[in-house]
């Protein structure tokens, strides 16, 4: 591996990124997902974390462009140069440009956006090209027949860790416990047809299903969910939670129990928490909430309490007027009380006891009713 001349690197471990201009080859959420996946590749082997901005200047500004696009390197039409990126630093440094004369795809039928994005992010973080033909940072694009087999080479890991070191927990203290909690009598059984949940949230593309003192961790890449004690990852968090939701733009998951809320980013419980839920604007009569979900497109967060719900505006950071409203009025078919709710693939998934309601917010109707544990691969 090699770094850029002078070894430029970011002097902080939490970086921001913003997708300024999208390609028309893919739906926006496919581009978002490919970039998130590419960021995760580097997150997993360093202390670095990333959060997405929707306005203003981010450390890594990402855009698609063709031919001459305002920097020293114009693109060259289909083929040849696919993209380029600049080493860490202010302004256009750290930025990534993709050649939109390529055919960008989620699979390998064209130029796979995830693979190229992972390579270009290596540059944005300070890696130059590697002469190791197996390395992600090798300059010549190599497609994979099976993308699930993609792994960083040791050369890539050595390179990025020469700049930022390993993830916070060193190998002898695995950050992510390698084996799940053995199923012990008295622990919840994921295939129990009566299974219900305390809270559910997304977290950086994965899903966390909280129950009692435990949670199942499900990602799109592994069929089998991992099963952990909450305290393994977040020792200071309570168990038997009430609600949880992810604020995507701030890369934070908010956790609720009773009249308190905590904020976690990755494994870190944020300073200044827990706080009282009334800081969000709830009336004093409310002492706990049942479930919460944040719509990442509309930047609105919904809080469900018995048969009613409130709506919070993430931009103005305030509870909206005209609430609470009846759940039955705006989410027809969803049975109160709501135990948990999360958003995925544009739907809201509501959980009440052992039943799960897939709700289409555009059609304003329940599109499927399933067992609550359908996500846990029983």
């Amino acid at each position, binding site marked *: 591996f090699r770094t850029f001349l002078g070894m430029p690197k970011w002097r902080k471990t939490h970086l921001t990124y913003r997708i300024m201009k999208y390609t028309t080859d893919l739906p926006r959420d496919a581009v978002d997902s490919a970039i998130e996946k590419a960021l995760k590749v580097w997150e997993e082997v360093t202390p670095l974390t990333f959060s997405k901005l929707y306005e203003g200047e981010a450390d890594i500004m990402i855009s698609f462009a063709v031919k001459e696009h305002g920097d020293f390197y114009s693109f060259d039409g289909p083929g040849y140069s696919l993209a380029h990126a600049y080493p860490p630093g202010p302004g256009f440094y750290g930025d990534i440009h993709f050649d939109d004369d390529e055919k960008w795809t989620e699979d390998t039928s064209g130029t796979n956006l995830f693979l190229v994005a992972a390579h270009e992010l290596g540059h944005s973080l300070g890696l130059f090209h590697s002469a190791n033909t197996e390395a992600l940072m090798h*300059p010549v694009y190599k497609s994979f027949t099976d993308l699930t087999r993609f792994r960083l080479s040791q050369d890539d890991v050595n390179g990025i860790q020469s700049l930022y070191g390993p993830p916070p927990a060193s190998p002898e203290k695995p950050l992510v416990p390698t084996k799940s909690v053995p199923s012990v009598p008295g622990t919840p059984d994921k295939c129990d047809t009566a299974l219900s949940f305390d809270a559910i949230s997304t977290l950086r593309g994965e899903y966390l299903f909280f129950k009692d003192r435990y949670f199942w961790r499900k990602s799109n890449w592994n069929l089998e969910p991992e099963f952990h004690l909450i305290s393994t990852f977040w020792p200071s968090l309570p168990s038997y939670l009430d609600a949880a939701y992810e604020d995507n733009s701030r890369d934070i998951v908010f956790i609720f129990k009773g009249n308190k809320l905590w904020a976690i980013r990755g494994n870190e419980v944020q300073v200044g928490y827990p706080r009282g839920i009334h800081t969000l604007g709830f009336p004093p009569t409310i002492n706990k909430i049942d479930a919460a979900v944040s719509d990442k497109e509309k930047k609105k967060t919904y809080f469900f309490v018995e048969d009613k719900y409130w709506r919070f505006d993430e931009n103005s950071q305030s509870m909206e007027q005209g609430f609470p409203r009846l759940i039955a009025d705006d989410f027809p078919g969803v049975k109160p009380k709501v135990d948990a709710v999360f958003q995925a693939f544009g739907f809201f998934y509501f959980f009440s006891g052992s039943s799960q309601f897939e709700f289409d917010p555009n059609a304003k109707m329940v599109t499927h009713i399933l067992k609550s544990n359908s996500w846990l691969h029983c």
Partner: protein
Amino acid sequence: AYPLSGAAKEEDSNMDLAQQYLEKYYDLKTDMKQFVRRKDSNLIVKKIQEMQKFLGLEVTAKLDSDTLEVMHQPRCGVPDVGH
């Protein structure tokens, strides 16, 4: 000027491709361009060897088919040498 034969024409276009590639990715100084037209110029031979070594090719110092094939492959636009 007499018309170039097919082989000579192809060799010429390979030379152009190599020259652009080496300028873009291997820091071949463009101001040397008029003197590196001849394929046996020491500088361009060195740059071809440097490129072949970096890209994991056999270092033949010639624009052989493997080398030409790799130069046609899609790649990252960031240089391999120089900054």
